[in-house]
């Protein structure tokens, strides 16, 4: 080798590592949106897509501007957002509470995990008539539906997160004679926070789905009522405005949770 080294062919070793490491590329998602909407606009303008198949994005936008200028947007949005906030707050806080109890006490776990598993797959929308009977046609039945729908995924995410808290940290707490309450509030809860927050992302998306369902029955104002009305008239422009508002709502909720994660979980590596 040593004598031939001068004569032998030389070649850089091929690179074959890299990849499999997600990086943040902020604008790509935005470009995908713009591209899709642009394609739809182009298709509808040229007549390649008939106006019966898909409304023109520019018409949808004009309808949205109308809705905004007439002041009806806030009339629909404010009740919807308040239903979402109240319903999801009840569901998530009860869910986190029950989830922590399941995570901490074997008896509660044995009693409630099968129950949660039993109510998780029930389509909550099917229970709306029942909630109307129990809580009346007004706001409380809507809160109940959203709360119930948020509750189950939050419970499952929370007790999973509590189970995953590093046991060696809990042993450490005991070895320094910390009280049970301190161990729960200073070690278990902060340790479970990443899991609880990522569970909330799922729960709150479900809450938005249920919000629309709840408003389809006995609501005068609300995004759901707006969509239902547009749908029954086959007014596709307004239907799409409603759906877009829901999407924006979903993205905003997800952004708020992202903000919380950045603030609360900056200790993560």
């Amino acid at each position, binding site marked *: 080798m040593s004598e031939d080294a001068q004569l032998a062919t030389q070649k850089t070793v091929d690179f074959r590592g890299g990849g499999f490491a997600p990086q943040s590329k902020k604008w790509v998602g935005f470009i995908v949106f713009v591209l899709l909407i642009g394609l739809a606009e182009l298709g509808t303008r040229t007549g390649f897509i008939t106006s019966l198949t898909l409304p023109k994005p520019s018409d949808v936008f004009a309808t949205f501007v109308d809705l905004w200028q007439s002041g009806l947007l806030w009339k629909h949005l404010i009740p919807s957002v308040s239903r979402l906030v109240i319903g999801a707050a009840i569901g998530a806080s009860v869910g986190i509470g029950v989830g922590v109890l399941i995570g901490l006490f074997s008896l509660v776990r044995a009693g409630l995990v099968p129950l949660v598993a039993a109510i998780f797959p029930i389509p909550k929308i099917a229970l709306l008539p029942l909630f109307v009977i129990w809580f009346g046609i007004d706001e409380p039945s809507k809160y109940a539906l959203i709360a119930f729908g948020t509750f189950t995924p939050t419970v499952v995410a929370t007790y999973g997160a509590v189970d995953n808290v590093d046991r060696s940290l809990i042993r450490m707490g005991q*070895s*320094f004679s910390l009280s049970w309450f301190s161990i729960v509030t200073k070690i278990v809860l902060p340790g479970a926070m990443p899991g609880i927050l990522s569970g909330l992302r799922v729960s709150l998306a479900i809450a938005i789905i249920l919000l629309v369902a709840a408003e389809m029955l006995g609501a005068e104002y609300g995004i759901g009522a707006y969509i239902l009305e547009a749908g029954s008239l086959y007014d596709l422009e307004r239907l799409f405005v409603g759906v877009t508002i829901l999407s924006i709502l979903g993205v905003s909720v997800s952004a708020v949770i992202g903000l919380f994660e950045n603030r609360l979980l900056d200790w993560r590596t």
Partner: protein
Amino acid sequence: MDLRLEGIGHHYGDMEIMQGIDLEIPAGKIICVVGPSGCGKSTLLRLIGGLERPSTGRVVQVGEPPIDSINPLTYIFQDFALLPWRTVEGNISLVLEDHGIRGAKAEKIISDVLARTKLTDFRKALPKQLSGGMKQRVAISRALAVKPAVMLMDEPLSALDSQTRELLMDDLVGLWTREPFTAVYVTHNLNEAVRLGHSIVVLSRRPGRIREVVDVTMSLADRELGDPELERQQKHLWNLMRDEAVAADKELLNV
């Protein structure tokens, strides 16, 4: 305060972990416990500090711990066990808060222990920013903060590289020389044992029994890397353990 182990035995289900362990832990001395893997060294330490209940025998506390001792039996863990969401000072105040020590009093203790472990500049750092050696220094200062009567050290240097281990051994010797503390120091590293132990307890493989107690008389401060007397002691320990270690290595695990 001394500790005395009286006929400690322990088993998980049918498996005997250790048997008939009698040991004196005198105040102001570092007792090292060595033995082949699976001999129950770490279990023994958990029994001493009351994190686990022995199947037979008992751990006796002889005399009262000093009045200013906040947590008489205090552990230092191999994996540091720092809360990743608290800063260095937050991790130390964690163990003081629960004993009603807050404000200026806590502040004084924290500054003192951070100075003793050379961590003053890292007070506001989060664990993720620290190297392994620094993390263990934080854990040591957290233990010092509660003024333990006995420190229970579970392979404290095993997760560190060999250079950092040397540095931390010097630190521990320095801490002991300035203010002698009592410690039970579990390790599988014979070099650490001869450098830090006033006496070294050799356990047999499972079920763990005390095979021999080796006293090292040289003062801690004089023990240096590569000292011939220490080398001899270390070799003696290895000869005691060698066959057991080979046998333990070949054992099938069915836990």
